[in-house]
């Protein structure tokens, strides 16, 4: 990419600015005593102001510059990284957790075989599996899982609708932040199971109790996630938004929210975890026929019948649902957002 012509042949200059080189224009120089008065005279350079734009000559070799620029761009382009082959992904991403699960099962089986605890207290993996299979054949298990998942999802969505504007207010309005910011952080460290007795006293054994506990668990973490997302926005992006005219709600919609998205999604993930946890706590404690049967109630049923395989089976289901929703919904969304921003390869 050698620039062959260092000097573009110059066409004759217009009469006003013949080849007389630089013409420094003297200004009154500021001195100490000139503090109070304007330091420069008004401009009076008619020739400069009417100086034509250099259109014809600057474009003498437009293709030269275009070619040079294309070359620079090509040199800068490091190329896209090839997709990693599927076998490699499976080996590095899927194999380790499978091995870990197999190891845990093996240790569990070993503990069972050695009879570290009586079998009614420590059943084997197979016994737990059979307990779940029995529930499956009774035809109740899907209904139980759905009961909890739908409650969790609805609670999460309501928490989202409450937590998002709350987070925005705390993040952007100084007095609001000073007033409830610390309370919001404090609520996040309060185990939401602590709200169950209060909720039962307020709402009785109804769905309202369960949703109240879920909201009190999830809203603070969603709001706090958004606050920390907003706090970590590059101030330059906010300035750029202002310069482009994105102010008020337009600014929130086009700059503030998208810029805060990575932190917000982290908050949503945590909000879901808190929703799910609070829901299980509420279902476990607030059991009544009107409330229907969720996973928490299944756990409580197992306890009351001293049915350890069922208890462990219910715990496994709670775990699988929690991890499944994280892996199927939140992880892909988060990866996509981060990859678009070049924060993840």
């Amino acid at each position, binding site marked *: 990419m050698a620039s062959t012509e*260092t*000097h*573009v042949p*110059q066409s004759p*200059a217009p009469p006003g*600015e013949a*080849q*007389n*080189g*630089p*013409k*420094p*224009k*003297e*200004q009154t*120089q*500021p001195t100490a005593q000139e503090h109070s008065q*304007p*330091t*420069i005279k*008004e*401009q009076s*350079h008619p*020739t*400069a*102001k009417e*100086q034509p*734009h*250099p*259109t014809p*000559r*600057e*474009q*003498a070799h*437009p293709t030269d*510059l275009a070619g*040079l*620029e*294309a070359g*620079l*761009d090509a040199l*800068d*382009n490091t190329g896209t990284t090839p997709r990693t082959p599927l076998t490699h992904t499976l080996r590095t991403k899927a194999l380790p957790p499978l091995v870990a699960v197999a190891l845990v099962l093996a240790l569990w089986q070993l503990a069972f075989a050695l009879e570290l605890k009586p079998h009614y207290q420590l059943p084997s993996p197979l016994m737990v599996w059979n307990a779940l299979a029995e529930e499956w054949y009774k035809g109740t298990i899907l209904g139980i899982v759905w009961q909890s998942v739908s409650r969790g999802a609805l609670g999460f969505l309501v928490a989202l609708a409450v937590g998002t504007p709350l987070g925005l207010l705390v993040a952007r309005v100084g007095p609001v932040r000073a007033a409830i910011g610390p309370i919001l952080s404090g609520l996040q460290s309060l185990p939401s199971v602590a709200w169950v007795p209060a909720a039962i006293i307020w709402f009785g054994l109804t769905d309202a109790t369960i949703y109240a506990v879920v909201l009190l668990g999830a809203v603070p973490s969603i709001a706090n996630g958004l606050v920390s997302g907003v706090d970590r926005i590059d101030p*330059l*992006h906010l*300035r*750029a938004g*202002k*310069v*482009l*005219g*994105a102010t008020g709600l*337009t600014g929130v919609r*086009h700059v503030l929210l*998208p*810029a805060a*998205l990575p932190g917000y999604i982290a908050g949503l993930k945590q909000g879901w975890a808190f929703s799910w946890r609070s829901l299980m706590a509420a279902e476990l404690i607030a059991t009544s026929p009107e409330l229907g049967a969720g996973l928490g109630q299944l756990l409580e049923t197992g306890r009351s019948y001293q049915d350890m395989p069922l208890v462990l089976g219910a715990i496994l289901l709670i775990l699988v649902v929690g991890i499944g929703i994280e892996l199927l919904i939140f992880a892909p969304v988060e990866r996509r957002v981060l990859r*678009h*921003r*070049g924060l993840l390869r």
Partner: protein
Amino acid sequence: MTATTTQTKTPTAIIKNVSKTFGHQQVLDNITLTLTPGEFVTLLGASGCGKSTLLNLAAGLDSPTHGTIEVPGGRPALMFQEHALFPWLTAGRNIELALKLRGLPKADRTQEAERLLELVRLKGAYGKRVHELSGGMRQRVALARALAQDSQLLLMDEPFAALDAITRDVLHEELTRIWSETNVSVLFVTHNVREAVRLAQRVVLLSSRPGRIAREWEVDIPHPRRIEDADVAGLSVEITEQLRGEIRRHGQH
């Protein structure tokens, strides 16, 4: 939007007796500067001269302590040293957002964004993510986004300072070309004397702490200019001498 033809006589920026104080620190002292339509002015100064502060004031991001700033052509465009492109949007969408905020109807946006990308010679970069572009390409997209505001005044805050010398040189040429094609007024802040002379019709030297206009030069060197030109070098030497004089005064007290 096309008021340029009817307002040729109205200056694009009128900065009158502007001073700015942060706390007890005076940053700008009595700056008076007028830009005519299509004029290219560079503001030159050492650190602490308040160059960027002056641009922020002109952009309306801050207001002066004393004096007035008028920008008759509406909200000026501002380009930063860092590209300041939104990483959650593609190059094309970044430009389209500027078009949307300027009020361009949705139907025209994609076409206009593509035209602007072609203007900065980035045809085909529409769908590229910001992190997929090189530093020079990002600044060109940022320039296209600034131009998308269709403002008569373009403020540039050391836009090429973070680029390598080869890319910077090419972008000087690009900027001159685009400026000549669009008739926009440019107020360009830099601490690079040669860059200032290479680009401008008028170089304004600011002294530091507080920033005051120390001196101005008309640059009558014909285009096309190169940063290596003897004329550019000659004037640069003279301006550098003056700049050093300004800096030395600070060592004396």
